[in-house]
């Protein structure tokens, strides 16, 4: 068994919203290995960002929101960490990049000031060394004229530039885990490709691991080695990217792949999955996807499917698959 960087075991999260407790993550488990990019894919509201917040221990409501399971980071359970211990880990051993590069930087300070602040939070070095380190990091993410960018205010930079700066900041203390929460969603396609290339290169050079959250299977297929497909707070299919994209077993994954527009065919209508993701608080028996499933069987609405493991560590939660075996 390979050593994992992060290992999530049966994580269950309840969040308080509008006076009601809602279960937003149902018993999810996955592993991240060193030097790996793991994709986390799903529709809006499927629990991707909550998973990220849970790993960072930044859920609103704190640790109390985690009602079950373990988050083992380098062998230590983060659920039991004190806020002060987590503060020392965040930014140093794990860092995060966000969806909105336009608002992820503080508008009243220069890039340089913010950069040096972050470095000096975690490293006992002089200001001069921190500035040099920051400039090196900016160069590493291919920012032309890094000296000028260093002195710029966020509003003077484009979205792509800001996202590069964010990546540089996130990498500045060489974290072993980087969580990228839809880092390219707000960028246009050409910039997207550059940022993805940059992410891939960073991982290769630093041997860090990345959890790449996206709703875009195309991006996931380019970047990730393994992927976990989330639906309504559960991981319903999880395995190597090639296997899952070429031979999806879960009806939801199939439908998701099917709804990617294909420009080679003449069809002008887009395929979509009927219905919407169920409300997180909805009490449901059986498989959470069954109301929208095209291959639904009688048992699906009555009993929760047990996870099935196919060769190559391909995990699926679906009755149809478990019956075929």
């Amino acid at each position, binding site marked *: 068994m390979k050593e994992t960087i992060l290992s999530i075991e049966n994580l269950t999260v309840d969040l308080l919203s509008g006076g009601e407790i809602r279960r937003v993550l149902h018993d999810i488990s996955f592993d991240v290995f060193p030097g790996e990019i793991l994709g986390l894919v799903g529709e809006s509201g499927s629990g991707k960002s909550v998973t990220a917040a849970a790993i*960072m221990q930044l859920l609103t409501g704190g640790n109390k929101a985690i009602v079950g399971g373990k988050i083992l980071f380098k062998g230590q359970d983060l659920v039991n960490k004190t806020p002060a211990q987590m503060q020392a880990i965040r930014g140093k051993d794990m860092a995060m990049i966000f969806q909105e590069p336009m*608002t*992820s930087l503080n508008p009243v300070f220069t890039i340089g000031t913010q950069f040096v602040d972050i470095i000096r939070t975690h490293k006992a070095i002089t200001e001069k060394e921190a500035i040099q380190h920051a400039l090196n990091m900016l160069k590493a993410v291919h920012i032309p004229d890094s000296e000028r960018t260093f002195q710029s205010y966020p509003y003077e930079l484009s979205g792509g530039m800001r996202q590069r700066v964010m990546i540089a900041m996130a990498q500045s203390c060489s974290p072993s885990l980087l969580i990228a929460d839809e880092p390219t969603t707000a960028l246009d396609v050409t910039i997207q490709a550059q940022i993805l290339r940059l992410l891939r290169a960073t991982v290769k050079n630093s041997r860090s691991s990345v959890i790449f959250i996206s709703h875009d299977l195309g991006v996931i297929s380019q970047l990730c080695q393994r992927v976990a497909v989330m639906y309504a707070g559960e991981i319903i299919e999880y395995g190597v990217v090639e296997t899952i994209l070429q031979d999806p077993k879960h009806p939801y994954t199939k439908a998701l792949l099917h709804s990617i527009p294909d420009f080679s065919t003449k069809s002008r209508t887009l395929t979509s999955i009927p219905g919407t993701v169920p409300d997180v608080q909805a009490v449901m028996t059986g498989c959470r996807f069954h109301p929208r499933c095209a291959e639904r069987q009688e048992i699906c609405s009555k009993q929760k499917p047990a996870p099935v493991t196919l060769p190559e560590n391909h995990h699926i939660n679906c009755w149809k698959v478990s019956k075929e075996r």
Partner: protein
Amino acid sequence: MKSFGSVYSILRRNSLTLLGCFIVLVMLFIGLAAPVLSPYNPVAIDIVNKLQAPSAAHWFGTDEIGRDIFSRVLYGCRISIQVGLYIVLLAAVVGTIVGSISGYQGGLLDQVIMTITDILLSFPSLVLAMALAAALGPSLYNTMLAVAIVKIPVYVRLVRGQVLSLKEQSYVKAAQTFGASQAWILSRHIIPNSLAPVLIQITLGIGEAILTASSLSFIGLGAQPPTPEWGAMISTARIYALDQWWYVTFPGIAIFTTVVGFNLLGDGIRDLLDPRSKN
């Protein structure tokens, strides 16, 4: 960054703001240069020349014990501007700290602070300031403290509202993921970004603070004789108002001009800093 030149061009477009700016600069100059500009010692008594009408020797006339009103008004400028600035700065600093903690922490602390704020705001501000000044004892410093305390809730509410919306900004969340401490996030990310409205409130508040402090001095709770404070001067002058018009008039004009000057400047700064209020 906006250069000084572009700020000047915006100021120039609005002639009222420019007027306010001019008045405030003149008042600041008078306040600073009062000892040089005054022809007489503001507290020197000259009983022989009491209640003289304005003349070449005494531009604004003299008061009931022969003090030169022009000199007293000039020195009063120094006092009033100091009073205005101290009150507003004290209220703004305390209000910003309390408001940001209240908004950032939330929960029970927030509820307690907001309840106290609401109670303070439910009193008419002058009456509350009077009560506080009377309780603290009549002196100029106690008056400043009393008015500042009354003004604090305004800043608390203003900053709390800002903080509540800033808390959800992604750079605040990003700072958390970079391992920043709560105190750091508050002082580096939240407070600096909530300062623009506070700055507007400060400039708009100076005139009001000067007025409130003068009112307290007028009813005898603020500056004590022989301090040349405008409100206190008007207070003694009011019994002479019918026969010696100059005694009440000049300190009155001084208060009026200063308050108008600061308010015009405050409006201009609001237009400058708040893009939504621009036409």
